[in-house]
């Protein structure tokens, strides 16, 4: 063993290394032995902190959940109109992945792992958007629009697909052409296109136009 760490420090080191490895290889692709090696401790020491791989995985997830993005600032500081709040939320969400791309990797891994707790957690992160979009459209869309329900559902899917794909191309395929694109500009434009698709023209000019005017 190289350095002596206190219990909580050791626990934190285990959690960070486990997060990195689970993000890279998924729950089934990592063994306790491998995590122990990454932290330079024996499996026996690791088991003193976590009873099982599942418990360690849950703790990694719990830690990510505690850093869950907050939309309170967005709501308090922006207008309450649909487009401003959606723009603010998208910005917060994208920033959270920008700060910790492991969030995105673990989400992708969990889709195939079939771990119920994990998929619930990530479903909930997206639910903020789909709820918000569905709720907003439910209020604003006339009741006699044909296929109203499926239109509202599709709008939520469209938004989630659009943002998720942008994140995948930016953070999981770094050789891609999005490398030099600013995520805040991209998210601004995606939201603008989305709003136009559902029939809302953003009231003000695009940010670029505002800046240059």
């Amino acid at each position: 063993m190289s350095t002596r760490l206190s219990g909580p420090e050791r626990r934190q080191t285990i959690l960070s290394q486990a997060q990195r490895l689970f993000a890279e290889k998924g729950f089934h692709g990592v063994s306790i032995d491998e995590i122990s090696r990454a932290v330079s401790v024996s499996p026996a020491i690791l088991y003193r902190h976590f009873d099982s791989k599942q418990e360690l995985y849950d703790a990694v997830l719990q830690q990510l959940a505690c850093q869950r993005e907050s939309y309170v600032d967005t709501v308090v500081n922006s207008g309450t109109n649909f487009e401003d709040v959606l723009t603010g939320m998208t910005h917060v969400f994208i920033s959270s992945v920008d700060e910790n791309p492991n969030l995105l990797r673990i989400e992708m891994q969990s889709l195939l792992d079939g771990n119920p707790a994990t998929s619930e957690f990530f479903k909930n992160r997206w639910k903020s958007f789909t709820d918000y979009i569905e709720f907003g459209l439910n209020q604003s869309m006339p009741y006699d629009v044909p296929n109203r329900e499926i239109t509202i559902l599709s709008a939520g899917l469209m938004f989630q697909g659009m943002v998720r794909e942008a994140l995948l191309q930016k953070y999981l395929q770094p050789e891609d052409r999005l490398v030099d694109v600013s995520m805040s500009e991209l998210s601004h434009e995606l939201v603008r296109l989305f709003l136009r698709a559902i029939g809302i023209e953003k009231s003000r000019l695009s940010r670029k136009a505002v800046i240059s005017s």
Partner: protein
Amino acid sequence: MSDFDSELDASGLNCPLPILRAKKAIAALENAQTLKIIATDPGSVKDFEAFCKQTGNELLSSGEEEGKFVFFIKKAA
């Protein structure tokens, strides 16, 4: 806590909807009136604390009742 002037049921909604609807409901209140909010999103506990801190409205109480989260917020005078 049982005294309130207006009630908002945000059950089943994820952040930011409960906060957004609370903001609108509070705007419709007179100063020092109280809003009761019911929510099911576990994140709403932290969210309403942050919301009150930022807006200056007073979080009179925050508790759990039959698996739901109940908040009483008094509009800042």
